[in-house]
């Protein structure tokens, strides 16, 4: 193109068309000031009336350049604008002149005749001059008229500033008193008043400072002062973005010594959020000032956070063996595996014992107890809701032994006693529960939580009178304790049930009457009414049935009603089928969503209350629940249904809900787990197909990726159980015994699963089930059952049975070792052996 232009340079200039006023206006309105200036410069020569537009374009361009940090270029535009006719004075032009120190032009503009007509603009210009005056540029003071408020009030403002900096608050007040409200120093006076109050009334000072207009020439001072009032966590970051003077003001107002400011400057070079690795260097450099112990602990945490390699750790800190174990224990906590966590802390506890030899009551002794309690505190290993998972029994046993040992080192922790008492009661170990109660009550005789624990233990042991007595003791110290009141009602109800079962309707009525004394509210009333129905039925069946029928109607006559009445019947010694027949409940009810949710909630309540429901009763809900799985439930409701049914051991119904959930949420790990466990929970995890294992492994992976570590661990535990049940070649009957006694090993299987278990198992999928079905077909169903029964009766006599060949599923593709030893949930011995701790301490 250039070449072409050169080529035609000698030719006559083409005629340049004059810009159109419309396009010039469009440029102006669109902020294309450079183009607008160019166009209007031409247009003004044709139409002088357009000079206003040209001035406007200059003004816009000046502001553009100023905002780009080009003050000199901006000033040139303002000067060009001033040459275009009688353009009014602009504050931006004035402030730019001040900033550039163009005193003569400042004063010239300040004295512009047009200003008399614009008091607002004049006031603003005066405020800027005032800020400049106080900012130390006093050379123009004598050039101002003697009566100019900038000059008149400036002296008082300067005195006030001097007094403030000198700490003379009285002087500040006196000097500010002579500054009138409409003075150009008004904002300054407000700021100074706020600054005086910063230490005593920071909120009031902040409010006062917030009232300063952001366009005020004093806004910079106000904003720096506000920063000094910012919360600590915001301050250090904010300081990086402000000018040095603002930082100095903050340092002074917050009392920062020079060493702190200096360290802040060093830290500020690391960015807004310094990495742990970067902070490690700072701590290393300043460890003398920070203190050796503090620095060491800080470095441990930083190294842990920075995930430094072993070599880097060594270089940074040279951790002691116990520090290394501490870091390992922290790391295990991140992985959220309860076994690993307990093991990590157990190892650390070992070093405390070895290194410190804790004495009773010493810090080391208490620390040891804390370490032993950590696994349970962190993972809730003894929580009742964890108790239903497979493998949880050994985990809880291990956790309980750690807690028991912790009481050796710190016997004054009531919470640990309560934790253990509850745990033992929940697992039916009432003797242990009572032992710990006795120890705890010897320390805290009238302690309410211990009284409650004692009452619960008495109830669990069927000592209803004792429980009632304890309940009264609790209510004596805490009369509004509704929980205890309810438990007391429950105690009387339990007593009434026991009497009813023993054929003592009179005693049952008496217990119910006693319960009435404590009952409050509709829920407790319903419980009483229900049991009273059964007491009545024991004496007068039609009357009792009538009472129960009306109660059932109130409950909706659905699944929830059947569960409630059936459970009460079972607890009171009545036959559920007879009751249901009496109530006309011969067919399974059609289930609606509300009824299903009510049923599940009541089932959970029975589980929480550890009420054992008879299998036939639960089985009677199977067909209803099967159809209920088709109801449109939300994801959370489906999960709750699966969990509740799992706790109840209702695996068929659980499988129905899990499958329904997987149809709507394909591959969802939690439902994969439920489907798998429900399919195999009753069959002892034998004969699992490889496809299922892969599916479970994929679910575990997805759970990990989603950060749901608890679910991932549950899935991993399920996989472990598969491997545990399918030991490597030679270990079980699945692969044939070393001596070839397949019959003895088959007997072992019958011993594990029971006759019904084996019969149930062969209905399931997998090669083992297929093989057994084949045997059943060969022998016939009755003979097969008979064979199983004879094996169960006398397993030792059963040798040489023609059991099918090895059926261990082939190793999965993932390369999972079998069985896994590193994370053998439920396989470890109790992890804590007090002897390992050199317990010669006391």
């Amino acid at each position, binding site marked *: 193109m250039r070449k072409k232009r050169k080529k035609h340079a000698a030719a006559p200039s083409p005629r340049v068309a004059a810009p159109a006023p419309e396009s010039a206006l469009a440029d102006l309105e669109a902020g294309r000031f450079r183009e607008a200036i160019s166009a209007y410069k031409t247009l003004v020569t044709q139409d002088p009336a357009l000079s206003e537009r040209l001035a406007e374009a200059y003004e816009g361009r000046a502001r553009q350049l100023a905002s780009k940090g080009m003050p000199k270029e901006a000033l040139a535009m303002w000067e060009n604008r001033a040459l275009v006719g009688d353009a009014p004075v602009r504050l931006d032009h004035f402030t730019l002149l001040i900033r550039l120190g163009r005193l003569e032009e400042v004063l010239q503009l300040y004295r512009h005749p047009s200003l008399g007509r614009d008091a607002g603009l004049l006031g603003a210009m005066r405020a800027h001059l005032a800020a400049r005056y106080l900012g130390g540029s006093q050379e123009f003071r004598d050039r101002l008229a003697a009566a100019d408020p900038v000059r008149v009030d400036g002296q008082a403002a300067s005195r006030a500033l001097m007094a403030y900096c000198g700490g003379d608050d009285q002087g500040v007040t006196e000097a500010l008193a002579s500054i009138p409200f409409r003075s150009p120093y008004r904002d300054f006076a407000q700021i100074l008043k706020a600054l005086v109050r910063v230490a005593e009334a920071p909120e009031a000072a902040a409010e006062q400072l917030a009232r300063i207009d952001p366009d005020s020439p004093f806004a910079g001072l106000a904003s720096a002062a506000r920063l000094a009032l910012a919360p600590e966590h915001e301050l250090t970051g904010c300081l990086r973005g402000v000018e040095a003077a603002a930082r100095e003001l903050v340092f002074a107002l917050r009392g920062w010594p020079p060493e702190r400011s200096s360290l802040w400057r060093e*830290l500020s070079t690391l960015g807004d959020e310094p990495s742990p690795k970067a902070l490690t260097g700072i701590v290393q450099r300043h460890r003398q000032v920070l203190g050796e112990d503090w620095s060491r602990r800080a470095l441990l945490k*930083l190294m842990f956070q920075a995930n430094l390699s072993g070599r880097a750790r060594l270089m940074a800190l040279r951790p002691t063996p116990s520090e290394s174990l501490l870091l390992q224990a922290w790391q295990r906590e991140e992985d959220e595996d309860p076994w690993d966590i307990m093991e990590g802390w157990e190892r650390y506890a070992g070093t405390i014992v070895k290194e410190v030899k804790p004495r009773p009551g010493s810090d080391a002794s208490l620390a040891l107890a804390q370490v032993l309690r950590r696994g349970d505190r962190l993972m809730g290993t003894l929580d009742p809701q964890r108790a239903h998972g497979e493998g949880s029994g050994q985990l809880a046993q291990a956790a309980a032994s750690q807690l028991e040992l912790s009481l050796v080192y710190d016997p004054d922790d009531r919470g640990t006693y309560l934790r253990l008492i509850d745990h033992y009661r929940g697992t039916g170990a009432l003797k242990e529960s009572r032992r710990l109660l006795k120890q705890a009550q010897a320390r805290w005789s009238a302690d309410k939580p211990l009284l409650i624990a004692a009452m619960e233990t008495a109830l669990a042991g069927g000592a209803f009178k004792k429980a009632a007595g304890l309940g009264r003791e609790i209510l004596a110290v805490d009369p509004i304790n509704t929980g205890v009141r309810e438990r007391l009602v429950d105690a009387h109800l339990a007593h009434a049930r026991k009497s009813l079962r023993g054929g003592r309707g009179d005693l049952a009525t008496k217990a119910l009457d006693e319960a009435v004394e404590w009952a409050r509210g509709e829920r407790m009333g319903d419980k009483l009414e229900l049991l009273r129905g059964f007491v009545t039925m024991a004496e007068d069946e039609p009357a009792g049935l009538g009472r129960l029928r009306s109660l059932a109607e109130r409950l909706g006559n659905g699944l929830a009603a059947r569960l409630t009445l059936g459970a009460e019947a079972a607890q009171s010694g009545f036959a559920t089928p007879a009751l249901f027949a009496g109530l006309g409940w011969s067919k399974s009810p059609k289930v609606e969503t509300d009824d299903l949710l009510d049923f599940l909630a009541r089932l959970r309540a029975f589980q929480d209350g550890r009420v054992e429901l008879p299998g036939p009763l639960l089985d009677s809900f199977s067909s209803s629940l099967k159809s209920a799985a088709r109801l449109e439930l939300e994801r959370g409701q489906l999960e709750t249904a699966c969990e509740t049914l799992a706790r109840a051991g209702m695996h068929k119904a659980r499988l129905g809900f899990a499958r329904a959930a997987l149809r709507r949420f394909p591959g969802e790990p939690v439902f994969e787990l439920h489907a798998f466990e429900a399919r195999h929970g009753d069959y002892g995890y034998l004969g699992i197909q490889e496809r299922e294992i892969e599916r479970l492994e994929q679910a575990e992976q997805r759970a990990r990726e989603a950060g749901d570590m608890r679910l991932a661990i549950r899935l991993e535990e399920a996989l472990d159980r598969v491997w545990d049940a399918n030991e490597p070649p030679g270990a079980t009957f699945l692969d044939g015994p070393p001596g070839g006694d397949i019959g003895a090993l088959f007997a072992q299987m019958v011993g594990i699963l029971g006759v019904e278990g084996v019969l149930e198992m062969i209905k399931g999928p997998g090669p083992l089930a297929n093989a057994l079905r084949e045997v059943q077909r060969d022998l016939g169903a009755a003979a097969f059952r008979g064979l199983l029964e004879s094996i169960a009766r006398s397993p030792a006599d059963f040798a040489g049975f023609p059991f099918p060949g090895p059926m261990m599923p082939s190793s999965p593709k993932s390369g999972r070792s079998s069985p896994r030893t590193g994370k053998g949930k439920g396989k470890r011995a109790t992890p804590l052996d007090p002897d390992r701790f050199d317990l010669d301490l006391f």
Partner: protein
Amino acid sequence: MSDPYLILGVEEGADDAAVEAAYREAIRHCSPERDPSRFEALRGAFELIRTRRDRLAYALFDRIPPSVADLLERAAPAGEPRRPERAVIEALLRGGG
């Protein structure tokens, strides 16, 4: 700040009484109405090191690394507020136009 000792301004060897006294004194100047976030920080710090067992648990199980504010407070605690130099305010006024 994350270090409860620094938040409450107590030594690491402080006993229950010293920790409680520091907490009471701090909240006397910083009620929940006056400065909720500071109050919450004080309350949280107090809960972390309230008793001997709490302090031991903090020493063993806390793995939150020190923040910049922790390092500053530990190395050179802030003292009493002071008045700035006049030159500082003048510089701010010159730059604030």
